[in-house]
């Protein structure tokens, strides 16, 4: 009780912590904020790579962390619609409400793909704004990084120059890495895969891979034996060479299909922290490509 009291007192008496306090909804944006902010930001990441980003709850610790945040960095495009609005209103933090400088949506900075022509939930759990899993195209990450660096500089002007320089340096390194990845990934052009959910669409588009099917019969519906059998039959016409899933997705459906179709199941980190190698954004792409290339070999 005493330590609780002192920590409250400390927190009240010293909101002066110099670092910009960033609340990232997902690990990729947390990692990006760290790249751009270095030691002049403190970053709290609300979710891990092993959690389904569609099924997050407004748990108490998120409300507490959002209360102190200077900047909330999220994906937008309705990915966080199930929990973030509650966290924002319950936090009592005026700075991070929608429309304020302290609320940053990555999806504002990129063009979304797979915008549904028809909004009807009989089509599954579709996102009206388009596919929100934008971070798996590194060119999107660059766009978001530029926007985020600018926003951080606007919020913390004493460190503005520092953030600008770091953003510039990051973008340079990132561009070089993207060039390298594009070269390395050349064998993946036209590589036909089955995905679990439409989480990998941007990756597929970037690398010119071919998505020939999804384990989920409709977005958000877990695969059943019936739907997988149907998919297996379709694969006879248009064969795939790998079944790809994100680290947080149930491994059983992809194992089921992989075994029967005689193709390898591939687990991708999906975001930072999804595998041991995906320690940061560079590691995320290095590991993702290594795993896909191993399957394509």
């Amino acid at each position, binding site marked *: 009780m005493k330590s*609780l009291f002192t*920590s*409250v007192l400390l*927190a*009240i008496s010293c*909101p002066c912590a110099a670092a910009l306090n960033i609340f990232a909804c997902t690990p990729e944006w947390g990692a990006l904020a760290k790249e751009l902010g270095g030691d002049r930001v403190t970053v709290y990441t609300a979710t891990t790579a092993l959690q389904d980003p569609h*099924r997050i*709850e*407004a*748990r*108490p*610790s998120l*409300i*507490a*962390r959002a*209360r*102190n945040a200077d900047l909330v960095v999220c994906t937008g495009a*309705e990915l966080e*619609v*199930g*929990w*973030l*609005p*509650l966290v924002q*209103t*319950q*936090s*009592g*933090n*005026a*700075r991070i*409400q*929608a*429309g*304020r400088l302290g609320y940053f949506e990555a999806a504002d900075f*990129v*063009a*979304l793909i797979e*915008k549904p022509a028809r909004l009807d*939930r009989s089509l*599954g*759990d579709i996102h009206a*704004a388009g596919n929100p899993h934008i971070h798996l195209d590194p*060119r999107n990450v660059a*766009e978001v990084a530029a926007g985020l660096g600018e926003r951080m500089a606007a919020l913390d002007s004493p460190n503005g120059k520092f953030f600008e320089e770091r953003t510039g340096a990051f973008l340079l390194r990132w561009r070089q890495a993207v060039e390298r990845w594009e070269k390395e990934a050349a064998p993946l052009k036209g590589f036909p895969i089955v995905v679990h959910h439409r989480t990998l669409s941007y990756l597929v588009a970037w690398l010119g891979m071919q998505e020939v099917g999804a384990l989920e019969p409709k977005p*958000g*519906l*877990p695969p059943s034996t019936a739907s997988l059998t149907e998919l297996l039959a379709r694969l006879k016409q248009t064969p795939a060479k790998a079944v790809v899933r994100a680290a947080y997705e*149930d491994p059983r459906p992809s194992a089921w299909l992989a075994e029967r179709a005689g193709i390898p199941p591939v687990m991708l980190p999906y975001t930072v922290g999804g595998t041991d190698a995906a320690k940061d954004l560079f590691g995320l792409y290095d590991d993702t490509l290594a795993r896909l290339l191993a399957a394509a070999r």
Partner: protein
Amino acid sequence: MFRSMGCAMALAVATAPAYAQQSDEVRKLQQRVDRLEAQSQSRGQSAFNPEISLILQGTAASLKQDPETYQITGLAPSGGEVGPPRRGFSLAESELVVAGNVDPYFRGQLVAAFTPEDEVEVEEAFFQTLALGRGFTLKGGRFLSGIGYQNEIHQHAWDFQDAPLAYKAFLGGRLNDDGVQARWVAPTDFLLELGAEAGRGRSFPATDPNKNGAGAWSAFAHVGGDLAGSAWRAGLSYLRVKPSDRAFEDTDSLGAPTTQSFTGESKLWIADFVVKSRELKLQGEYFRRREEGDLTFNDTFTDSYNSTQSGWYAQAVYRFRPQWRVGYRYDRLDHGEVSNGIVDNGLGPTAADFPLLMTDHNPTRSTLMVDWSPTEFSRLRLQFAQDKSRAGVTDDQVVLQYVLSLGAHGAHKF
């Protein structure tokens, strides 16, 4: 305008002499065009429509006892709709939820319930501040009170078809008063939240006083955080009201109808906790109520009436497959200590003339449910309960329930 400019620029670049960066440039411009197009689409008056969602619910029930005879023996009736659903097919409340940001300073929400009796009830209609900052929010209007844990959860998001017995007995199902609420979240890494409410006291345990100022006061504190992959929250709440002529009907020892009413002070304490991991949710609440005042019997006798009564429930819900959950809940109420001056001082009526208040019965109930949610927008539930709310009577209840939600994807409370 922007769109045509963007197109012209994209064209200009596309027809320029080829050089290494060209495809990248075109792509960037294409993105910009797409973005502007997307923005222009979402402009216009329709973009300001609030979020609207509709909840459809219904039940099919098989009950051993007639639900018309439902009572919680040993505790004063709460007057709320606390009985089990009708036997056979029955529509439950259909809820219309309309919510949205009013402006940068306020958010508003309406929850209207269409009852199966063709009435419309306003369950919630409140504003909430967005811009107070420093962890403060203010709510005003009619809203689900922040006391307890389940009280703030909308009925369609409950883990069982009905409310715990303690909620039925002590709050008439739930508390949604007209009033104001202030909340403060402490600037700590774990959740520490304090709140207070002043309300009119429009429903049980209050009696809707016709007076200036507040008729119900409550306060609550929540702490919560993460623990080894689970999230938890614990809370303590207090509610104080001063009911006046809170009347209910009963029958005396000869079977003649009687009217009794309570005037005095009622204080309720609630301790609650909830722990959630990916598959398992544990939840429990303990209620303790102290009432001090006078009881009037048939408008003839009036004497002191003091009671200290309590109740609790604990429940566990386990998700054994992505779409399937099974849950068990145990409820118990404690008749506790009741001193009735009319009986004690020998004014005439004996304890047998107060079967509801003076029967030393501790109601219990065991509930088992299994539900299937094909998506987060639909849920079918089968629930079995052995309900011993009535003294000496066991009611076996089987309820099949559906809960469907259409429209905007509302965020659910923890």
